[in-house]
Every structure is written in C-alpha cells, then in structure tokens.
C-alpha cells in the first residue's frame, strides 16, 4: 500500500511544476500605447532570466507578442487592458504678450499680467494675439499668431508624457518675417497650468515677446 502513496503524491506535484513552466505565446494588439511604453509595462511580467524556460517578447508598431506562462499572459492582458486606452485630446491656448512700451493693463491677460508685474518691471503688457489649438496625443501642431508688429508661428509636437503631464516637444515661437528668429524648447505642462515663455528680444520687434501656453485635457 505504502508503495503507491509516494508516486501518488509525487506525480501530481511534478505535473504541477511542469504546468507552471509550460510557456504559451500570445499576441496582444496595442491600440494607443507607443511600443516602448507597452514593452515597459509588460517587462515585469516576463521572466527573461527564468532558468531553462525563459520568457520572451517582441514588439511591433501595433502589437506585442509574449511568450510566458499562461498566468503571466493573463496578467499582461489585464495590464494592457487597463493602460492601453485612448488618451484625452489636448486643448492648447496660446497668447502672445508684448511687454514694454505700454502703460495700460490688458484685462484679457489680467491673471498672467498680475504675476508678471511681481517679477518683471516692464512698464506694461498687452495681448498681441491669441489662438486655441486642439491636439491629439502624438500630433504636431502649427498655429499662426498675429502680433501688433507682424506674424508669429507656434509649432510643437504634443503628447501625454505622464498620466497628468503633457509634453510639448520642441515648442517653437518664431517670427514669420525675414530671418524668422525664434525660441525653441521642450516643456512639460500639467492640465490647467499656464507656462509663460520669455526671453530677451530675439524677434524683429521693439517689444519683448512672451508666449503663454495653457493646456487642458479634453475628454472625447
């Protein structure tokens, strides 16, 4: 009788171990994440260094294929279902503010002007031009802005860098006249936040040019 007890216990245990190490391959569609984002999300669930039966994955533009245990594949499916979701569109409001040479206050920029007056001692500020631009995640925007002394263009690549942070990559403000001098930088902005970008005059303008950008998330 005892002879049968040990095999009866061991066989199911071995079968269980074997089941855990059995790998399966599954391909997940990626609809909204960028490939590097998707791979970073799933990496913790893929045991590349598992002895004997390492996991593996490969990512393409719109899909990621993973070889892992069924349990881990299920976890990966849950993670992707949670994070691979459409991202809100972004509404960007740009204001071109001209500083110096004026003494009046401009009610259109009252909130920003109140803060600028605490920092700089320009004699006055006025709104030169204003524009609202809608952008989808990963899109590139270009918008013309009229100043009192010419036209400017604003360009940027817009995408969500974090759950609550929008990246304006290589945002550029350039005068559209001959030479087209301007300012280029990259900023990360929270929804609801206003960034004021300024520099000593590098445009064909007697005034100092400031660009404000306010970002808002717009749910579809």
């Amino acid at each position, binding site marked *: 009788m005892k002879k049968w007890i040990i095999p009866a216990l061991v066989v199911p245990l071995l079968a269980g171990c074997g089941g855990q190490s059995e790998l399966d391959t599954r391909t997940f569609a990626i609809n909204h994440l960028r490939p590097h*984002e998707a791979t970073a999300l799933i990496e913790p669930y893929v045991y590349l260094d598992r002895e004997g039966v390492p996991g593996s994955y490969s990512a393409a533009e719109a899909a990621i294929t993973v070889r892992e245990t069924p349990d881990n594949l299920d976890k990966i499916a849950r993670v992707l279902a949670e994070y691979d979701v459409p991202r809100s569109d972004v509404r960007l409001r740009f204001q071109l503010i001209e500083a110096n040479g004026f003494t009046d206050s401009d009610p259109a920029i009252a909130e920003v002007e109140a803060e600028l007056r605490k920092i700089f001692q320009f004699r006055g500020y006025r709104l030169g031009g204003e524009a609202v631009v809608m952008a989808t995640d990963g899109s590139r925007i270009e918008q013309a802005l009229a100043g009192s002394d010419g036209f400017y263009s604003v360009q940027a690549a817009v995408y969500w860098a974090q759950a609550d942070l929008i990246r304006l990559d290589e945002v550029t403000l350039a005068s559209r006249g001959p030479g087209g001098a301007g300012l280029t930088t990259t900023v*990360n902005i929270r929804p609801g936040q206003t960034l004021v970008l300024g520099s000593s005059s590098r445009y064909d303008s007697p005034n100092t040019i400031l660009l404000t950008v306010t970002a808002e998330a717009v749910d579809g």
Partner: protein
Amino acid sequence: MSPCEKMRHLILEGEPHELRGEGGSPLAVHVRMCPRCARAATRVLDETERLDAFLTRDPTGAQVDAVLERAGRAASPSTARAASDAPPAARPRSPSRRWAVLAAAAAVGALLLLPGRSLPPPGPELLGPGARRLPTVEAMTGQRVAVVETDNPEITVLWFF
C-alpha cells in the same frame, strides 16, 4: 541634512537683517556662528542689491539676462545642489522677496539655471503612479532658462537666455 544645508534653504528666504546675522532667529544665529554660511548669505545680499539696482534703472530683458548670467557664473556647485534638492513646497516665498529669491537662486545656480542637455524620450516608466515627475522645461543644448514659480500655482514663468 546637515545644519548648514538646512540653513542654506533658509538663506534663500531670509530677510536682509537675518542674512546680515542680526537678530535672534535661527538663521541669524547660524550666520553669526558659521563663516561659510555667512559668506553665502553675503553673496545673496550682494546679488539681491545688484539685481534690484538693475531692475530699478531699466528692466529690459537683456539686462535681466545679464544679471542672471553673471550670478549663474558665480555659482558654487555644492550650494547649488543644496538648493536644487529642496522641495519647492518647503520654501514658500513672499511677493516682496520675489526678486531676492530669484537672485539668490540664480546665484546658487542649479535650481533656476538649467544647462542645456538632451534627455531621453519619455520612457514607459512614466505611465505608472510612482513615476518620477518630469521637469517643467527641458532646455535645448546651449540654452539656459530661469524657472520662476509665481504666487499663482498654475502659472510658471520660464525665462530663456
């Protein structure tokens, strides 16, 4: 955090009499006792006065640049690190001291003056709730920028030079 590091945060906020070591506040007492912090406090006072003088005469952007640049060149790396490590929320500022704080921060260099550098593209780790916060501005190569938080938490001024 050593007593000196803690005091260097206070130096950025200190009133002039405290920076001169006058009075009984912890900052004033420390400035009187610590020659190194006393030198830092003196530099903050000097830069504040120079900046005030410039801005009172003519506040054009070029002159703001000049003051910030000169202050930045005089920066001490060790002090700069101390300043940049401080969480912004721990250093409330009064409007009357705005320029003093800006000058002081410019003097110590790192918090406000970000040397141009290229950063890797936003990585996947940015998605999670524990992801590190990205900086407000990632200056281009050769570009420097002063980041000025305003009293309105939703408005931040970035001055490039």
